[in-house]
C-alpha cells in the first residue's frame, strides 16, 4: 500500500528483532474462530481514479444556486486567508496540546479564541470549543443544573426546534424536567435564542433580571455575526452564552464540522465543560499557555467529570478566530449591517404579496406565509436557480405555507430583485 513505508526486507528484519516468524503470529491473541471471513468492501482505487470518483459524486450536488436558505447556518463570505492559514499542517495535523512546550501555537490560538468569544459576546470566560450549537446548548443546560442544583430546564419558543430535539435526545435518561416557556421560578435555567429561530430580534434584559431574582441561570443562544450590530448576551444579563460558530469562517459543508461556542460568567468557570486554556509563565519567566482547570475533565475525573468531551473542534475555533481578526470590529459591523439591510430590502418586497410572520424586528432572516405549500414553491424556484429558503413545516416549526428566508452579505441587489420577482410569480401567477 502507498502509505505503508516498511519494505518486505525491513519487515523480515523487524520480525527477527521481535522474535516471531510472521505478522500473523502477532495476532495470536485473536481467537481463530473470531477472525474475519470476508467482507463486502469495494477494492482500492488509485489516487487518480479516486479523484475522478469524488468529482463525480460532488457533481451530483448542485451548488450554483442563489442561496436564501439559513435556519441557523449561513452562506457568509470567507476571506482567503482563513483557508490559507488554517490549512497549515502544523495546525491541522497536531492533536490536543498535552505537551504544552511543543504546542504553543495551538494553546495561544485557543487563548486568543477564548478572548475573541468573550469580547464578541460580552462574557468573561469561554471554553476551547464544543462540537456545534446544538450540543453547546445541551452542555449549557446541564452546566446550569450543576451550578444551581436544580433540575428544571426551561426552553423558550425562540430556540431552534432541531436543537430542542437534540436536547431531549441527550437528556433522555437524565432526571431533568425539560419544559417549554420562559418562567424562571424554580428553574435551573431559562434558554432563549436571539435572534430567534425565525429571525426575530428582542431585548431579553428583563428576562435576565427575572432569572437572577428567581435564582435561575439565564442562557442566551446567539448568532455570532449578528453581534456585529446587536446587543450582546452579556449586556442582557446572560450567565451562559452559546452559539453555533459556523458563520465565523466555516464552510457550510452539509452539516459540519462546525463549532460549539460556550461562554460564561467567570464565577461559573469551574462548572464549564471542555478544555480551557490559561496563561502562565515558564521556568525562565516567559509567557506561555497551558490547558488548565483539568480537574473538571474526563481524563482526570472520569464519571464525575463535568462532561465526557475529549476531542473538540479546535481547528474550527482557529478558523473562527482568524475570521474575527480579519474582519475586525468594523468589518464585522459592516457585514452584520449588510446582512440586515439586504434582508430588510427583500422583506419589504416580499411583504407586498405575502405576510411576514415575525412579531417584531428581524435580523437577516424572516418567515413568510405563502399562499401555496412552501415545498412546492421551493421546488419551482429550484428550477429557476434559487434555494428559496427553509419550508418550516419540514422542521416542525410552521404550517405548510411557511417559509424561512435568510439573506447574507453575499447576495447582491440583483439577486434579491430576481428572487422577489420569481417568488411573486410562483406564488401569485404572472398576472401582476
Amino acid at each position, binding site marked *: 500500500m502507498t502509505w505503508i513505508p*516498511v519494505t518486505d526486507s525491513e519487515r523480515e528484519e523487524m*520480525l527477527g528483532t*521481535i*522474535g516471531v516468524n510472521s505478522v500473523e503470529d*502477532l495476532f495470536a491473541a*485473536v*481467537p481463530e474462530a*473470531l*477472525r*474475519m471471513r470476508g*467482507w463486502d468492501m469495494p477494492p482500492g482505487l488509485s489516487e487518480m481514479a479516486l479523484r475522478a470518483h469524488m468529482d463525480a*459524486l*460532488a*457533481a451530483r450536488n448542485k451548488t450554483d444556486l442563489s442561496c436564501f436558505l439559513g435556519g441557523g447556518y449561513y*452562506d457568509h463570505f470567507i476571506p482567503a486567508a482563513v483557508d490559507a492559514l488554517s490549512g497549515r499542517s502544523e*495546525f491541522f*495535523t*497536531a*492533536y490536543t496540546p*498535552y505537551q*504544552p512546550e511543543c504546542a504553543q*501555537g495551538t494553546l*495561544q490560538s485557543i*487563548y486568543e479564541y477564548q478572548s475573541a468569544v468573550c*469580547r464578541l459576546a460580552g462574557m468573561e470566560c469561554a471554553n476551547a470549543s464544543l*462540537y456545534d450549537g*446544538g450540543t453547546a446548548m445541551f452542555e449549557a443546560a446541564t452546566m446550569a443544573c450543576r451550578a444551581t442544583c436544580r433540575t428544571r430546564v426551561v426552553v423558550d419558543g425562540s430556540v431552534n426546534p*432541531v436543537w430542542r430535539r437534540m436536547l431531549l*435526545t*441527550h437528556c433522555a*435518561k437524565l432526571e431533568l424536567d425539560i419544559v417549554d416557556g420562559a418562567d424562571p421560578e424554580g428553574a435551573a435555567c431559562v434558554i432563549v435564542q436571539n435572534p430567534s429561530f425565525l429571525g426575530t430580534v428582542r431585548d431579553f434584559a428583563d428576562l435576565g433580571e427575572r432569572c437572577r431574582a428567581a435564582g435561575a441561570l439565564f442562557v442566551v443562544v446567539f448568532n455570532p455575526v449578528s453581534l*456585529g450590530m*446587536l*446587543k450582546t448576551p452579556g449586556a442582557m444579563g446572560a450567565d451562559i452564552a452559546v452559539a453555533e460558530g459556523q458563520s465565523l469562517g466555516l464552510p*457550510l459543508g*452539509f*452539516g459540519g464540522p*462546525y463549532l460549539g461556542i460556550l461562554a460564561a460568567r467567570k464565577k461559573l468557570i469551574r462548572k464549564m465543560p471542555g478544555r480551557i486554556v490559561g*496563561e*502562565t509563565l*515558564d*521556568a525562565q519567566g516567559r509567557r506561555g*499557555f*497551558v490547558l488548565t482547570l483539568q480537574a473538571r*475533565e474526563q481524563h482526570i*475525573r*472520569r*464519571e464525575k467529570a463535568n*462532561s*465526557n468531551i*475529549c*476531542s*473538540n473542534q479546535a481547528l474550527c475555533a482557529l478558523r473562527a478566530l*482568524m475570521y*474575527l*481578526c480579519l474582519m475586525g470590529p*468594523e468589518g464585522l459591523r459592516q457585514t452584520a*449591517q449588510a446582512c440586515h*439591510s439586504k434582508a430588510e430590502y427583500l422583506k419589504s418586497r416580499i411583504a407586498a404579496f405575502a405576510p411576514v410572520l415575525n412579531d417584531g424586528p428581524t435580523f437577516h432572516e424572516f418567515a413568510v406565509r405563502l399562499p401555496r405549500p412552501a415545498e412546492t414553491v*421551493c421546488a419551482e424556484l429550484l428550477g429557476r436557480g434559487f434555494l428559496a429558503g427553509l419550508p418550516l413545516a419540514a422542521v416542525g416549526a410552521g404550517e405548510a405555507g411557511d417559509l424561512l428566508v435568510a439573506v447574507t452579505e453575499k447576495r447582491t441587489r440583483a439577486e434579491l430583485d430576481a428572487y422577489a420577482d420569481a417568488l411573486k410569480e410562483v406564488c401569485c401567477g404572472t398576472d401582476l
Partner: protein
Amino acid sequence: MELIYEKSRSGRRAVALEPLDVPEAELNSELCRPAAAPLPEVSELDVVRHFTLLSQRNYGVDSQFYPLGSCTMKYNPKVSELVAAHPGFATLHPHLSSAKVYEPVCQGALELVFETERMLAEIGGMQAGCLQPMAGAHGELAGVLLIAAYHRDKGNTHKRTILIPDSAHGTNPASAAMAGFEVREIPSTPAGVMDFDKLVEALDDTVAGVMMTCPNTHGLFEPQVHEVAERAHAVDALLYYDGANLNAIVGKCRPGDLGFDVMHFNLHKTFATPHGMGGPGSGAIAVGERLLPYLPGPRVVKSADGYTLETIPKSMGRMAAFFGNFLIAVRAYAFLRYYGGDGLPSVADNAVLNANYMFARLRGAYQAAFEGTCMHECLLSAVRQADKGIHALDIAKALLDRGFHAPTIYFPLTVKECLMIEPTETESKETMDLFCDAMLEIAQLVDVDPDSLHAAPVTLPVSRLDEVRAAKDLNCACLA
C-alpha cells in the same frame, strides 16, 4: 510572542468588503450594541504573519513523529484534504437534508453518507452505521443512549448500571454517567486484561451494558471478549465497543463478530482524518440487530428514485442537527475507497508490527508494563528511571528536545510511570529507529546526566510551564 490583541492599531483593516447596494436599514438602538465588538484591528499581513509564526510553535504529524498512544496519529493523506475542499461538498447547505424538496440537489452527498455508513457497518460487522456523533466521546454517549432506548422500550426499568474496566479511557465512565447511568468499575488482572471473574460477579440484573475497548488501553487483546458478550447477553445487558483502538484489528476481526451490539469509530484515528489540534474528529457509530430499531434519525436510504431520508419510528432521536462532521466523513470515505477492502488489513498488520518492533527495541532499557507481544501500541513503565529521579514526564520533555512528540504519559492510570507508544502503520523503520535510539540515549542519561533531563525541553520557544500558577492566577481571556 505577542497576542494578536497586542498587535492591534486603531483604524487598521484587513479585508475590503463590498459596498452596500441597498438602502442602509435601521434597527432600534435598544436592540443594538453601543459600540463595535473590541476585536483586533490588524492588516491581512499582520494576521498571516501572526498565525504562521504560531503554527511554527507546534509539532504536527507532517513535521514530527507523533507516537501519542491511544490517539493513532497516523499520516493524513493529502488527497483527502483535496476532496473535502471540493465546492460540491464544502459549500453544500445542511438544510438541504431537512426538506424533501431539496433531496434532488444533494444526491452526491446523500450517497456519500449512505455508502460511508454502509462501509462502517461492514467493517464493524454490524447492521447499520450512523455518522451523527461528532467525536469519539459523542459516539460513546450515542451508544449508551441507544442502550437506554433499548431497555426503555423493553420495559427494563431496573437496568441502571454500566460496567467499565479500570483501564478504559476516561470518556467511557464520563459518557455513561452523562447519559444517566451508574458506573461500576471492573479491575484488570496483573496480566493487563479485564478480570473476567470480577465481571461475572458484577453482572447482575441491574446491568444495562458493558463498555469495552479491544485491544484495551494496555495494548492487549481481551482474550475472553466472546465469553463476556455471552454472559452479558444472558442478563440482557448489551455490549459497547470503544473503537479508539480499532486500528489494531481493522480487517482482521470485527466487533460485531466478537459479540458487540454497538460501537463507535474514530474516523480521525483509524481512517486518517486530521486531528486538528484537538478536533474536529468524528465518532460515527454502528449497531447490530438488537439496537437497529433505535438508531438516531433520520437515515439515508437507497430507493428506486435515488437516495432519500427516512424517519425511524423508534429512533432514540437526534445526536446532531444533520450528519455530524460531514466533511470529516468525506475524508474518511476517500480513505476507505483509496485503501479498499483489499488494502485495509495492511493497516492493522503494519500498525501491530511497528508497535511490536519498538516494544522489542525498548523493553530492555525500560520495563515492559505487560509481558508478551502487544497489539498496535506498546506500554513501557519508567519505574526504574523514576527510582533514580527521572519520571515519565522528564523523558517526554527530553524527547521533545530531540524533535519527537512524546508518547502518551501517565495513562492508563493502571500503569505506574506509563509511557504509551503508538507508532501507527504510516511510520518508516528509520523514523522508529531514530526514536528508539533517542529513548535509549535518554535511558543512559538517567545514570550519567540526570540534570539535563530535568531541564528539558531547552530547544523550544518555552521551557516547562507552571501549571499550578495557571490554575491559581486564572487568566483565560484577554478582555478588552
